[in-house]
Each structure stands twice: as structure tokens, then as C-alpha cells.
């Protein structure tokens, strides 16, 4: 992979990590409205997938979407403002953490029922195909959401309509407080791909290189052949389902193990240094820049203006009502 791509990937993973770790602290001290689902531990998933996307490809995120958005290139500041319900937020404060959306970078936010992005992605890809613009659509789907009927329907539809969609299942061990292996008959999602006549691959989600290689192949095929595929990424989240989750359903020492053995940032860093692809100094520069960015935007957000009251009535309809 080109050096600039590696630097970008690292910057994104680091930004997500710091953004979320700080969010964890802020949530605990109050001031973050609504439910917040952190992406810590899964950074290599979205960043690995996005490393293979072109500018006109679309990523569809989930409720655990801060990392998805940042990986696709959403501005961290306006993302944060949205999460805090401020006027300058990406959606003017109408979306919040779970539904952040940024059409300027082709990032579609989570929508209602989990898994629904799978079907929306089919339409995004259909439009791309109709225009022959060579773009693919990549819905991220939690492994729990994979059991929603619409996801399974969408897999069949994408195959029947021959759409360039890569269904990426983020298997992070849990759906809320329920274990993945229990809720998924057979325990494996990539294996469902065959049922809908498409290739399916599973890789470790904490390894940026494994993710990006698998994604490269499937996305490339989708783009060239206009056919769907499945990519399952396996990596547990480090925090709870949402902030405030006591996580007593976890096994003893699980988070410690994850943090010490399966931290995608450590694994990435060790590898790029060992292979001489990047230097410690290069990474340190990024770390510092990110630290500053996060500190700045978290400071700024608390003073940021709230949406004007009139916004309540805006954007119900796009044309006259």
C-alpha cells in the first residue's frame, strides 16, 4: 500500500480512537444527549474498508457510526457538533449520534431499524449502475442486525439485480447484551453468502491489512462485474453496547485481553514499523495533530450555538407542502 494511504489510514484510526475515548469521558460527566455507541476497538474495520473506496463510492454506517463516518472522511468537528445537537452539526442537530449523515462525502447515516442500510445500499448501487458511474455501495451491518429480514432480502435482491454492493458484517461479538454466536444459527455470517449466490469471506477485524486486502478484492470484483459479495469482520468492541452499559455479560478479563492483544492501533503500528513502511516519528506527528484536534473541537462544541427554534419546522418536506 502507498505510504500516503498508510498515513491516512493511521490518522483515521487514531482520530476515531481519540474521538471516542474522549466521548466516553464526556458522556460519563454528562452533556452528551441521547444514546451513544462507541466504536473503540473496531477502528480497523471501517478504516480498512474505506481504504479501498473511491470518491464516488458510498458507505452506509450504523448506530455505532462515529468511526464509520470518520473513516469515510466526515469532518470530525461537524460530527461532534451533531452529536452534541448543535446548529453547526452535520444535520443541523436533527440526527444526533445514531443518524449522522454527510452526503458531501457520500456517507449515509444509520436509519431506523438496524440493518436497513443493506436495502438502501441496493438502491444507491442501482442508481450508480444505471448511470454506469462505476461506483459501489458498501453497507456496514452489525452481526446482530444481520438477522433482520431486510438484510437477507437485500442480499437476494442484490444478487438478482446484479448490483455492486459489498455487504460488510461487523461481527463485534455482541448485539446489545446478546452473544453473536448464539443469535446467528451456525455462528457464521460469511457462510450465508453462498445461500444468495455470492462470495463470502471472513477476516479478523483488528488487522487493518487483513481487512483492506479482503475488501480490495471484493470491492474490485463488485465494481468490475457488478455483483455483490459478503465480508465478515470479526473483532469485539472495547466498550459497552451504549455508554452506561455495565457489561456484566462479558467474560472476566475480556476487555483487558482485547486491549492488550487485539488493539488494531498497536497491531498496525508494530507492523508498519517492523516492515519499515512508516517511522515512529511520522506516527508521532499524527498522534500530536490528532490530540490537538480532539482537544480543540471538544472545547469548542460546548460553547457552540444551539439550532435556531425555527429549525424545528424546516426540512419536513423538500418541496412545497
Amino acid at each position: 500500500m502507498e505510504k500516503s494511504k498508510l498515513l491516512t489510514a493511521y490518522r483515521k484510526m487514531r482520530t476515531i480512537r481519540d474521538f471516542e475515548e474522549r466521548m466516553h469521558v464526556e458522556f460519563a460527566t454528562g452533556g452528551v444527549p441521547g444514546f451513544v455507541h462507541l466504536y473503540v476497538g473496531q477502528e480497523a474495520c471501517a478504516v480498512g474498508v474505506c481504504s479501498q473506496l473511491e470518491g464516488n463510492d458510498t458507505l452506509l454506517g450504523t448506530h455505532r457510526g462515529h468511526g464509520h463516518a470518520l473513516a469515510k472522511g466526515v469532518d470530525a468537528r461537524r460530527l461532534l457538533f451533531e452529536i452534541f445537537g448543535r446548529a453547526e452539526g452535520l444535520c443541523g442537530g436533527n440526527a444526533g449520534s445514531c443518524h449522522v449523515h454527510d452526503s458531501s462525502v457520500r456517507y449515509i447515516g444509520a436509519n431506523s431499524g438496524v440493518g436497513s442500510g443493506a436495502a438502501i445500499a441496493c438502491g444507491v448501487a442501482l442508481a450508480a449502475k444505471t448511470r454506469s458511474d462505476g461506483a459501489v455501495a458498501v453497507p456496514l451491518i452489525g452481526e446482530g442486525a444481520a438477522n433482520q429480514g431486510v438484510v437477507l432480502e437485500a442480499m437476494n435482491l442484490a444478487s438478482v439485480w446484479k448490483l455492486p454492493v459489498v455487504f460488510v458484517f461487523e461481527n463485534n461479538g455482541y448485539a446489545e447484551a446478546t452473544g453473536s454466536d448464539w443469535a446467528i444459527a451456525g455462528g457464521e455470517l460469511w457462510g450465508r453468502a453462498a445461500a444468495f449466490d455470492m462470495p463470502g469471506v471472513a477476516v479478523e477485524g483488528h488487522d487493518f491489512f487483513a481487512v483492506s486486502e479482503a475488501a480490495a478484492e471484493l470491492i474490485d470484483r463488485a465494481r468490475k462485474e457488478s455483483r455483490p459479495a459478503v465480508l465478515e469482520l470479526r473483532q469485539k468492541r472495547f466498550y459497552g453496547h451504549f455508554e452506561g452499559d455495565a457489561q456484566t455479560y462479558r467474560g472476566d478479563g475480556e476487555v483487558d485481553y482485547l486491549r492488550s492483544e487485539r488493539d488494531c492501533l498497536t497491531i498496525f503500528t508494530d507492523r508498519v514499523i517492523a516492515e519499515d513502511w512508516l517511522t515512529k516519528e511520522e506516527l508521532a506527528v499524527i498522534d500530536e495533530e490528532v490530540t490537538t484536534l480532539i482537544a480543540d473541537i471538544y472545547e469548542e462544541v460546548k460553547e457552540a450555538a444551539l439550532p435556531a427554534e425555527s429549525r424545528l419546522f424546516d426540512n419536513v418536506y423538500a418541496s412545497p407542502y
Partner: protein
Amino acid sequence: MPLKTFRQAINDTLVQEMQRDVRVILIGEDIAGGTGCEGDGDAWGGPLGVTKGLISEFGPDRVLDTPISEAAFMGAAVGAAMNGLRPVVDLMFNDFVSVCFDQVCNQAAKCHYMYGGQNSVPMTIRANTGAGISTAAQHSQSLHPVFSFFPGLKVVVPTSPYEAKGLLTTAIRDDDPVIFLETKLLYDMEEDVPDESYEIPFGEANILREGGDVTIVAVGRMVHVATEASAALARKGIECEIIDPRTTSPLDTETILESVEETGRLVIVDETTPRCNFATDVSAMVAQEGFAFLKAPIRMVTAPHTPIPFAPNLEQLYMPDPAKVSAAVQQVVGYQG
């Protein structure tokens, strides 16, 4: 002007809008009919024949047959609409919104708002509605009240071929998700319909009949039931003003209020079940905004609070008919305060 059926009027409109704008595509089960079969690939035009011929003219890239997966293809329509197309989805029976409710009432309806206006969702959902052909409890509902409940949707209930063409044209050109409800019993209705395309604006009611004694607001086929009743009532010296709102969302409250200001009396005829429906909606609007005009109770003529029975004799009883409308009108006209 040529005579056209309701069915033809819709077919015509789809052809014209697809010719006019390449972004318009059709999605639905069997809207071609014959896909993946050995015989005619333009066999059906949907179970009711409305889209017949379109696949032959526009091909499978613009007329997309689907697996029986409403949630997936409705969701796909939302995605396509957010990405530059203007899908017209055939849901077949409006009752089938039950298997894609999330896509229609949460996603299509709320995306524009939730995403702060970044994307519009220009899509039209065509679906048949209403009882009268023994399709029983789960294929005969009139769900316009449920659709009208949800902010973000526009809801259209044409009452004639002429209206169907003009309103569907408007729907397809509109930038919001529009629910376009085709009353089953009207598909064969004939009327003069211009060949050239035209728009009928949303939120502008049509006054079908003027009269000073009572205002009747009726929706969909109930307009014809009310018209039939009004002819008999006229012979008894009671003159009805009949208002067809055309769209239940947006609703032309002004025209209704102006009429009630004249007549002082209001009857609402709605084929749907009685609770939280369009009749209650109009009644409540008038009881709030036009109370001073009212000389009598507002009466609603609707179906009863029961599912729709299959047996034709019970189904007839279920639906509002001219006799029920007449009785209601006579009650409000005869009301002694």
C-alpha cells in the same frame, strides 16, 4: 378529448414521465410480468394490468421486476432516490406496507428531516386501496389515514381518471415521497382525459358540486357515493356541496372551512375504519378552526370498527353507501340545536 380508464390514465402518465425524465424508473412485483419465464416478458403489467407495455418500451433497466421482497426493494427505492433517480414503486395492495413500513414511514418519510435537508427522497409509491372485490381483511384496507399520520409523506387519493393523471404527474415530479392510492373499484372508470400531460397541484381540493345546505367532504371512491347520495337528496330539496380534497396530506383546510362557513353543516365520508382516521381529522380541524360556523354536529360516515369480511354480502354492509350518506346528511340538516 379521448375517453380513458383510470388504469389507462395511470399507464399514460408513467409513459409520459419516463419519456420526459430518464431518472424515472419503475420498481415492483410483476410490473412487467414474465421476467425469468420462457414466454412473453411483458405478460402482466402488474396483477391489475396497469403497467402493461412499459417494459417493452423502456426495457428492464427502467422497469424492474423484483423478488417478493418489499422491504428490500422499497429500501432500494429510498437509496436510489437519495442517489439521483426518481423511482415509482408499485406496492400492489396498500396493505403490503405492513412488510415495508420501516422503509416507507421511517426512512422515506424522515430522511430529509433527519439528515438536516441534505438529501431529498423523490419517490412515488403507487398502491391499490379499498374494499369491494372480496379480497378480505388483509387486502382491502384503506390506509390513507395511517400514511397521513406521518410527517414527511404526501398522500394522494385520486377519484377519477382525469385526477389520476394530473396528480400522478405531480407526484412523480415532486421532490418528496408521495403515496398514490388507487381505489380498486375505480380502475375501470372511464372519463375524458387529455393526451398531453398536466399537473394537478397537491393541497387544492376540488369542489364537485356546489350546494348551500351541507358540506360533504369525501375521499377516493366515496366522492362518487356522496355524489349519488346528493342527487337523491337534491330531489328532497337538500343541496350538498361536495369536496374532494384530492390529497389527504397536505390537506386543503381552507376550502373545507370556507364551505362550512357557507353551509354550517359537515358530513365526512371515508371508507376507512372509524378510529383515528381521515374523517376524524377533518372533523377535528373544523371543530377547532370553524366552530363558529357549525349549526349541527359533524357526522362521519365510515366503515365500522371491524376487519373487512370476505363474504360479499357482509362486505357491502361494511362499506359506506349512498343510503348511509343520505341518512347522515338528513340528520345534520334536520338537527334542531
